[in-house]
């Protein structure tokens, strides 16, 4: 007597229990605190905030802990949480020119107003594993510049003053749109593309940005400027009639400056690629800027020849929550469709064997005939 497999619910409960057990690991090891994660795994927290589209270090840290360090899973947790939050409104555009910078570099000039500020970067470390980190060695506090600094002018404003770089392509007075509120319908405006890229997967955008450097839609980029620091968020309140600050966020901004030979409509000038992400992640900001520039191909009259220029390709596939969901949904049962395919393959094999059998029989017969003829 056959009894079909039941007890899906119990199995799921047991799986969750085992997951909780494995998450905690060896109970004799102290549990991670959220403070430890936000303080010591800060760049992981930044990535989760950025691709999770929610600026909240504590929630991001919680998500990382709950996801056992799987950042895409953590991003997913944050996204699922933010979808339940009511939308109160939108902030004024942030002024990155007024950013309180901790790092600011430009590859285009040796020196420039505000100076080159290296900040907390891995760039010039030798990538040697540091065994001292195995224990909690004493770490000297970082040194900060004293006193009021000169204004840190944005490099695109310096270039723009001379008319050497295009005006920031505007939105023609249209509302920039919101990818959470409006269905994505191609072709997308640049504002909608940038929103999608900002929450896009770092690895995917990195690979695409890299592909543009290797000749798949070459854009001759210069890292015009990368700046990391805090900016003030302001929200316009109609009741008051002016914008009020509601807090500060840390951002990484990349202004890529790209060579452009000009087209029928436009004189030769530099063009822009733009990247902006929460927290500190210049890899993501730079990759985003390269992709943004590549996706402007149509607007600038360039031939669309490479994947990075194809907005349907890039935007439809850059979201890691969507990508991981659909790839992993292959784990779900598909046995009903598989049954249909089984039936088809069996039918086709039977037809094949019938046809082949007839063919082999014919061959055998002709061989006999030949043999007979030879005799």
């Amino acid at each position, binding site marked *: 007597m056959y009894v079909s497999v039941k007890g899906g619910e119990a199995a799921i409960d047991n799986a969750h229990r085992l997951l909780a057990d494995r998450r905690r690991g060896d109970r004799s090891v102290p549990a991670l605190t959220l403070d430890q994660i936000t303080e010591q795994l800060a760049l992981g927290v930044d990535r989760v905030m950025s691709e999770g589209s929610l600026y909240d270090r504590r929630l991001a840290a919680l998500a990382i802990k709950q996801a056992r360090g799987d950042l895409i899973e953590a991003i997913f947790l944050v996204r699922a949480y933010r979808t339940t939050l009511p939308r109160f409104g939108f902030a004024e555009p942030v002024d990155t020119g007024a950013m309180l910078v901790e790092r600011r570099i430009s590859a285009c000039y040796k020196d420039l107003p505000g100076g080159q500020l290296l900040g907390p970067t891995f760039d010039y470390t030798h990538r040697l594993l540091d065994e001292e980190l195995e224990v909690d060695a004493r770490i000297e506090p970082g040194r900060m510049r004293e006193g009021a600094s000169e204004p840190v002018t944005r490099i695109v404003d310096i270039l723009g003053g001379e008319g050497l770089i295009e005006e920031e392509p505007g939105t023609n007075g249209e509302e920039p749109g919101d990818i959470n509120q*409006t*269905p994505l319908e191609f072709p997308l405006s640049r504002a909608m593309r940038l929103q999608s890229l900002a929450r896009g997967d770092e690895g995917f955008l990195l690979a695409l940005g890299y592909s543009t450097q290797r000749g798949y839609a070459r854009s001759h980029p210069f890292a015009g400027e990368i700046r990391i620091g805090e900016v003030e968020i302001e929200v316009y309140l109609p009741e008051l009639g002016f914008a009020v600050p509601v807090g500060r966020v840390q951002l990484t901004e990349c202004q890529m400056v790209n060579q452009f030979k000009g087209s029928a409509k436009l004189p030769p000038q530099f063009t822009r690629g733009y990247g902006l992400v929460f927290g500190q992640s210049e890899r993501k900001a730079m990759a985003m800027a390269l992709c943004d520039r590549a996706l402007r191909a149509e607007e600038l009259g360039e031939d669309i020849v490479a994947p990075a220029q194809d907005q349907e390709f890039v935007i439809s596939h850059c979201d890691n929550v969507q990508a991981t969901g659909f790839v992993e*949904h292959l784990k779900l049962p598909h046995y009903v469709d598989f049954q249909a395919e089984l039936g088809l393959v069996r039918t086709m094999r039977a037809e094949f064997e019938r046809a082949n059998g007839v063919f082999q029989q014919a061959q055998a017969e002709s061989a006999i005939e030949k043999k007979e003829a030879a005799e």
Partner: protein
Amino acid sequence: MTAHPQTSGYNFAYLDEQTKRMIRRAILKAIAIPGYQVPFASREMPMPYGWGTGGVQVTAAILGPRDVLKVIDQGADDTTNAVSIRKFFERVAGVETTTRTADATIIQTRHRIPEAPLREGQVLVYQVPIPEPLRFLEPRETETRKMHALEEYGLMHVKLYEDIARNGHIATTYAYPVKIEGRYVMDPSPTPKFDNPKMHMSEALQLFGAGREKRIYALPPYTDVVSLDFEDHPFEVQRFDRPCALCGAEQVYLDEVVLDDRGGRMFVCSDTDHCESRQAQGLRGELSGEAAQ
């Protein structure tokens, strides 16, 4: 049927009311234009994309406190994903749930349509992975939208022609394209083509949600649904050369169950509720045996 206390801290059925209204507007438009894919601002849900986020959003948007919900995957109420989605709505909406098709007001499904005919007042919500029937013939959304707008469906038949030229018959077994009211070509989601005839003139409202692809489409009750074919190669559904081994049902879709590693197989109803109802009526198949009594 079982009632459940709702988990506090979330709005009824998880989504906030603003989002529900947005989804309902898309659903209304979809009902007004049967078979047309309406874009909507799909939200992240607490289950992965590809695991039913579209269906869940549609269900969440239409669910009321007095609804009775049934969730099936592969025709079964006890498959893991069906269990998971049913539990989700038990937690965030506290609605009654059931496994009985006849008792449900809303049935969310993946890959099957129940065997028992649905009736007026019921809603069948399909989870859809790829809503675009032309997608694998033309990858570009901008182009497929134009093809739908201009009714350029020749390519669809090119594919069926190729099937026949190569295999002697149409080799599409699931997600078999249909034409709605003589206008839009629609993907019925990856249900086996066995279920296609059930969509035609169904008394129930049928809603299709694709979360990752951000589309909703619909078949209002009593809609004309025709599976694409050729005059001399008419559409045919799968046939099984035996009845269900447990309840003896014929003309139903069967799952193949591997019994051992020596080629032992049995075939049982994919629709578990249908099978159990029949067994409860005393109907028996060849393998149900004495133990079932």
